[in-house]
Structure formats: C-alpha cells, structure tokens
C-alpha cells in the first residue's frame, strides 16, 4: 500500500542528485526541477559521496567548483566505483573554456552544460540523457 498520494505520484519520476554549494542556485533548481523530478540537493562533494553510499539516483548533476572541492573528482570517483559506474552525469557549471570542457569529459561526465541555463533547457537535457542511457542499456542487452 502507498503511504500517501505523494508517494503514488512520485512513482516513475526520475530521481536527481543535485550537487551545488550556492544556496540560491540550489533552492532555485530544487523548485524548478522539482516540478518534473524527485530532486535531492547536497552542498558538497563529501555529502554527495555519503548520499551515493546508500542510494543511487537516476541522474547526478554537479557544479565543477563546489566550494574548495572539485566536481571532476566526483566524476572520477563515480566512474571508479562498480555500483555507480553507469550513473549518468551532467556537469552544470560556469566554467566554459575548451580546457574546462575537455577536462569534464575526460573525468567521465556524459553531458556538459554551461551556466546560465534555463531550468526548462536543463529539464529537457535530463530527459534526453535518460533516454540515451536507456538506449545504451537496451543495446548492451542485445
């Protein structure tokens, strides 16, 4: 039995882990993305790793500069842990140079979105990446 109508409505929605140390951005994205997804926000890489120890979201979205920590380290960590290796990652960052983007993909991100980015566009990219990953899983099973 479902505990509440909210629990019932949450079924089938993608779960997003959003890693960002800027409180304003976190709150804005929680509101915006929360309209279509189940969003859990954390403010540090350390918190993100703790979360991932117990739960695997459908997609992880992270800034690259997370206070003194680095989102690229989080990407490398995820790709090194067998249980997390296939977790889709989107880097959402204000770093926009060629070197930044190359470093992001080398660290293992699936997508790289430069701020500012309308929540509407980010929601579309989340859905597109989710479909791509489902296709990849489907192909891997053939």
């Amino acid at each position: 039995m479902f505990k509440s109508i909210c629990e019932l409505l949450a079924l089938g929605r993608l779960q997003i882990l959003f890693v960002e140390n800027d409180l304003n951005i976190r709150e804005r994205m929680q509101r915006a993305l929360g309209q279509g997804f189940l969003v859990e926000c954390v403010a540090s890489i350390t918190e993100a790793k703790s979360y991932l120890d117990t739960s695997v979201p459908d997609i992880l979205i992270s800034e690259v500069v997370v206070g003194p920590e680095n989102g690229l380290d989080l990407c490398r960590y995820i790709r090194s842990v067998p249980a997390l290796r296939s977790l889709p990652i989107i880097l959402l960052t204000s770093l926009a140079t060629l070197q930044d983007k190359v470093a992001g993909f080398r660290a293992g991100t699936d997508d790289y979105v430069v701020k500012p980015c309308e929540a509407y566009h980010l929601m579309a990219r989340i859905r597109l990446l989710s479909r791509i990953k489902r296709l990849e899983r489907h192909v891997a099973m053939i």
Partner: protein
Amino acid sequence: MSSKSGMKKVLVIDDNPTIVELIKYAVKLQGMYQVIVAYDGEQGLQRVLTEQPDCVIIDVKMPKMDGNQLVRCLRGDAATANIPLIILSAMTREEDQLTGLLSGADEYLTKPFKPAALNDTIERVLRLTPDDRQRRTDDLSQRD
C-alpha cells in the same frame, strides 16, 4: 561564420584521413563551401571555438571525445548551441541513429554516403532556425 570569400565554412571531424578526404571532395563538389578539418573530438571542439564554422560534420567513433559527446558539449553552451550539426557515421543501427539525434545532432547520415545526399543535408541543416531546433529538442525529450 562565413569565410572572407563569402563561402560557408564546413568543419569535418573524423579520425580516418581517407574518409576526411572523401568528405572534403564531396562537399567541395558543390563549390559553395570552404572545408576545414579535425581528426578527433577534442581537436574538433577546439576548431569549432576558433573557426566558428557554419556547419559541422561529425563522426561518432573517435579518440579522446566521441561524436555524441561532442554534440552534447556543443549543444550545452549557448555560444555553440545553434551550430548546424550532422553526424556521419558507419554505425547504422536504429539505436545509434536515435542516440545521435537525442544528443542533439540535426541529422544522422550513414557511411557509405552519396555526395548529393550529404550536400542536400548540409543545405537542409543550414536552413534550420533556433526555433526549429528547440521544437525538435522538445519533441524528442517529451517522447518516451
């Protein structure tokens, strides 16, 4: 950005030099385009940022950054989000084509290709507007 001669600039990114030459020949047949080249995804990204091409033809299986990653990277930055992008790949499965389109390519062509088909496709993507592209993205992202 068009070159000084007024010709549209087409960037070809493929790690196979023979294929690059074939594409260059096919595109130049039309006499309307200046062709520049790159041989892997990272070099391709660099050339997009420095050369601001009018259209990019991208292989999928490439060293360093693959074609789908490159397409997503370009679509993820407002500065490059509306460059016409064509994937030209030897990967012919329906899933491969859908992955390319979901990544943000305007068109997906398979190798071997016919020069006329490639040139028709270039003309077609050059006519796309940002609104056309947004509608396509919305449509693809809302299907399940």
